[in-house]
């Protein structure tokens, strides 16, 4: 129990992931949804790093940091996504004078 294994990190990431999903589903604020996405990404990052630490397979030195490289890309993508999302939200706000995603239903069938 006190010995911290991969299972602890993975269960933690599941909890964070669930929190991200809940955030996505319950927030009407566009930025809230963005926050939910960040949570989900962090859950994924925790998984990658944890597996990199505990399940490395005994390969060469180069393969020791594969999980970390993926996490780096996740961070990069998160940053890019945040930038783009915020630009979109600004436009959205300029158009509708609101940040409520419920209002973004112009294209409904």
């Amino acid at each position, binding site marked *: 129990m006190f010995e911290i294994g991969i299972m602890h990190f993975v269960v933690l990431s599941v909890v964070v992931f669930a929190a991200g999903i809940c955030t996505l*589903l319950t927030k009407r604020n566009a930025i809230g*949804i963005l926050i939910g996405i960040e949570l989900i990404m962090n859950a994924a990052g925790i998984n990658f790093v944890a597996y990199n630490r505990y399940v490395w397979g005994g390969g060469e030195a180069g393969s020791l940091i594969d999980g970390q490289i993926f996490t780096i890309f996740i961070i990069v993508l998160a940053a890019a996504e945040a930038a783009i999302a915020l630009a979109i939200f600004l436009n959205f706000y300029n158009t509708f004078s609101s940040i409520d995603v419920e209002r*973004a*239903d112009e294209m*409904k*069938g």
Partner: protein
Amino acid sequence: MAPQQAELILTLLGMATLLPLASAFIMIILTRRVMFKAAGWFATAVMAGSFVCALVSLVTWLGVPEADRRGLSLLKSIPWIPIPSTEAGHLYLGILVDNLTIAMMAMVTLISLLVHLYSIGYMNGDKRYNRFFAYLSLFTFSMLGIVISNSIMQMFVFWELVGLTSYLLIGFWFEKRGPQLACKKAFVMNRIGDAGFLIGFGILFYQLGGKLLLPAAGGASGMVEGQVVTMFDAIKTLIEQDGHSITNPPLWLTAAGIGLFFGAIGKSAQFPLHTWLPDAMEGPTPVSSIVHSATMVAAGVYLTGRIYPILTPAAHVFVAVIGLITLVIAACMALVMTDIKRVLAYSTLSQLGYMILGLGAGAYAFALFHLVTHAFFKCCLFQCSGSVINAAHHEQDMRQYGGLGKKLPVTMACYLVCTLAIAGASIPWTEFGISGFYSKDGIIAGTVSYGHALHDTFGAAANLFWLAPTVVAYITVFYMARSFALTFLGKPRNQKLFDHAHEAPWTMCVPQIVLAAMAILTAPFLMGFWQSLIVASEPQVAWIQGADHLAHGHAMHTTHVYLLNGLAWIIMLAAGIILYIPGMKFSSKIAAIPGINLLYTWAYNKFYFDALYDTFVVGLGKLISMIAAVFDKYIVDGIVNLVGLLGKAAAFLIGAFDIHLIDGSVNAAAAAAHSSGGLLRATHAGRVRGYVLIFFASAVLVVLAVVTTVMVFGA
């Protein structure tokens, strides 16, 4: 006869026939602006050309020795309508020229020319001046076509054309009610006769198989192109094959002859169908003058002359009786008429009765000769009456006339000459007279022998065949004298009318003078010509006209019984003139005598023929049409309405089916699509969170499905 002469005659007569047609077409095409004023002179000039053609061919014909031209026929025919199922193979179109044709061509073209000339003056100022001449030329063309036809079929075509153009001419002033009714009446009466013509034609066509060429029997010795069997030869062959003979002809031949003669009854206005001719007076006077002389009524007599050889003895009796009735009743009516043109019209009827009676009685040559002489003097009489009417400002009642001779000397002279001609005037107890003297006496002579011949069959009644025409000959003189006296002699009974009267222009006087001259000259000088022509054209029909009376009749022709010889015509003429010089004073007293007044009333009302036809024929027609109307209204309309109702009901059912079933199903489909679309639409509400929810829920379901599958079926 030299072939060149034959060719010349055929060509000239063809030209003479076609020239009026050409001028009619030119005048119809070049209407109003181009040749409105010139139409009269143009048409007259063309008719003059036509007359010259006919005259040249007449002279050429007379140049042939009489022995050669006796029974000579020139025939030029081209195949017209192929009828493969018959023996002849074709109906032929062409020209037949024999003595009768030559004589008729000259007479018709001359009279037509004079009528054209007369019309220039008479129709002057009419608003359809050009059209009148077009019709007149077409009318002449139709008559010439009948004269020149070489088959019954072709004749029928021109026959109908005559009917049409007479309709147009009688109804020329169609704005007025009278001409409208008159032209319709003439047309309908002629159609009734034509129905008989068609029946006779049909019988002959059926029996002879299309061999309907017309040259007189025995006349095929002339220039017949090819080996064409004529109608008469065909009939002869046919009935001899059947074992029939001259004295015992087959019934169909009698029927065919009477049928064809019905056409003549219509055209020549004989007894049952005579009522149209007096009404035709509603047309312009030149039309009356040509209808009553050369063209229309002559066509019927001409046809009877053409079919003369095929008339069986029974048919001859029929023809004679028809002529007899006509001449008697027409003379009686002429006696009491007060309208100058109507007197002349009934006079024409009476004279036509003479011709028909003559043909029936076997006085073939004199009947046709009378046709020619009568054409001249009757045409002249009508032209004179036209001049009088013109002078009297269209007053036609003779009671308003009187003393017009002082104002119209030329017209009076012409009228007198023609009155003498129709009276058959002659120098007492000699053989010299003017035209009517020869022709009418010949007919009466024929009827005398016919009456004698029929004495065995009909008993004393057979005497009527000669008694009636003899009496009517006296009546004729009397009523002509009456009309002459009432019009030209005595004191003016209408001073105003008298003061305004004036002589006709020269274009009207010249034809009158020429015709009056012809009326005199045909008799002593041309009679030899005409008579030789017509006698020569008389078919040698001994094979079929075998009855003794005919042979007897022919013998009578050569020794005339001049029944009017002597002072008879002078007495009647004087009586008429004296009685009527003071107007109607004496005559109205005579007409008031009981007994006579009854006859007078009957005659004055045309023996109630019109009323009779109105009541029975027209009434019957009305009754039938009423029954037909009732039938139409209640039965036909009822059925139609029923069908309509059924259609409506069916349409209602179909409509309901449409609305509720078809539209309903379509609407239901549309509604289903709409509602399902609405349902699915909710999933595309544009809600980001909804999409996320669906995304994750789907993921859960997929995992659930995979896990379930794995757990159920094993890993």
